[in-house]
């Protein structure tokens, strides 16, 4: 549908001035990269809808039936939210922004594409989704291992979380929404606690213990929750997703997802 494309474009254009408010060269470079990727993805979504319209006569975005169009739409939406293999813009863009703008970027901007993803969920190609999800979880875990900048760590963690969300989309879209909600809550907690302690590197996090011990404890707890340890809340979506995957006879997939969760947990605990 056409309104979806317009909504995506408007959200992109609205974020750009927020990003360039700082007048720092890094901020403008981040804004340029972000704008280019988002505009490309939006044009690709429109192109996929148009191709589908020419080939099958359906303009409604929830009834895309041609497999090429569905694949193209999913790829374009993955580019928009930062799934692998189209994730290369996310760490750099998040690095160049200040924490509040990065918060808006990671949480609010994911809502609109996810609305579209949820709508096209029944028609999707299962193999493609599983491939994207596993790749995102792997790259999110591996890429975050060598990072000292906090914003890049959060970028890689969001890539991994999005991988989890995409895997379950074909079977049970409501789990995707649940995971999205919890991810938004946890990521906002992380960003806001980093903003309060004004930390942008892992080394400066170590000094918060002397300033405000409650804040340091809260940061640690929410980090562990992001990693998905029981009995914290972050464990719940992972457990439900794994359960659903094993119900659908995909044990290998479930094992791979669990191991990549271990990877991201490692760099959280530093």
């Amino acid at each position, binding site marked *: 549908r*056409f309104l979806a494309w317009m909504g995506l474009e408007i959200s992109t254009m609205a974020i750009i001035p927020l990003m360039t408010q700082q007048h720092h060269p890094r901020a403008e*470079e981040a*804004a340029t*990269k972000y*704008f280019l990727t988002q505009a490309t993805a939006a*044009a690709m979504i429109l192109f996929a809808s148009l191709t589908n319209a*020419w*080939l099958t006569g359906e303009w409604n975005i929830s009834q895309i039936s041609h497999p090429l169009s569905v694949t193209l739409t999913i790829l374009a939406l993955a580019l928009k939210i930062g799934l692998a293999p189209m994730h290369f813009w996310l760490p750099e863009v998040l*690095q160049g922004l200040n924490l509040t703008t990065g918060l808006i970027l990671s949480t609010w901007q994911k809502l609109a594409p996810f609305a579209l993803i949820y709508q096209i969920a029944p028609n999707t190609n299962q193999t493609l989704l599983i491939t994207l999800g596993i790749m995102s979880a792997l790259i999110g875990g591996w890429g975050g291992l060598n990072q000292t900048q906090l914003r890049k760590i959060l970028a890689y963690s969001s890539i991994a979380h999005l991988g989890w969300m995409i895997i379950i989309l074909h079977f049970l879209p409501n789990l995707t929404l649940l995971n999205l909600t919890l991810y938004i809550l946890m990521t906002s907690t992380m960003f806001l606690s980093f903003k309060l302690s004004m930390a942008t590197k892992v080394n400066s996090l170590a000094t918060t213990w002397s300033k405000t011990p409650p804040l340091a404890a809260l940061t640690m707890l929410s980090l562990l929750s992001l990693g998905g340890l029981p009995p914290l809340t972050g464990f719940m979506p992972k457990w439900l997703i794994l359960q659903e995957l094993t119900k659908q006879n995909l044990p290998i997939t479930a094992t791979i997802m669990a191991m990549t969760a271990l990877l991201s947990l490692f760099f959280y605990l530093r």
Partner: protein
Amino acid sequence: MTPTHFSFTSAFILGLMGLAFHRTHLLSTLLCLEGMMLSLFIALSLWSLQLNVIPFSTTPMILLAFSACEASTGLALLVATARTHGTDHLQSLNLLQC
């Protein structure tokens, strides 16, 4: 696939390749984005002509308005980049590497 479909599909794919593989100037990326929007505009107009549905015929104009907004945003970002980095060569966009 009809010739019309093929022509605007190939136009879009050419613009996409130009966008993905730009080499020296940032301006060529914006040009390719505009080319993609133009091919989408042509496709949308032809399709609404085929449909003969009256309320749908305004969508090409709306698309044109939005792509103009998009292009102006891109140009504003280009001006900002030129102001801080000094040029729009792609090699200077490497401040954010880890």
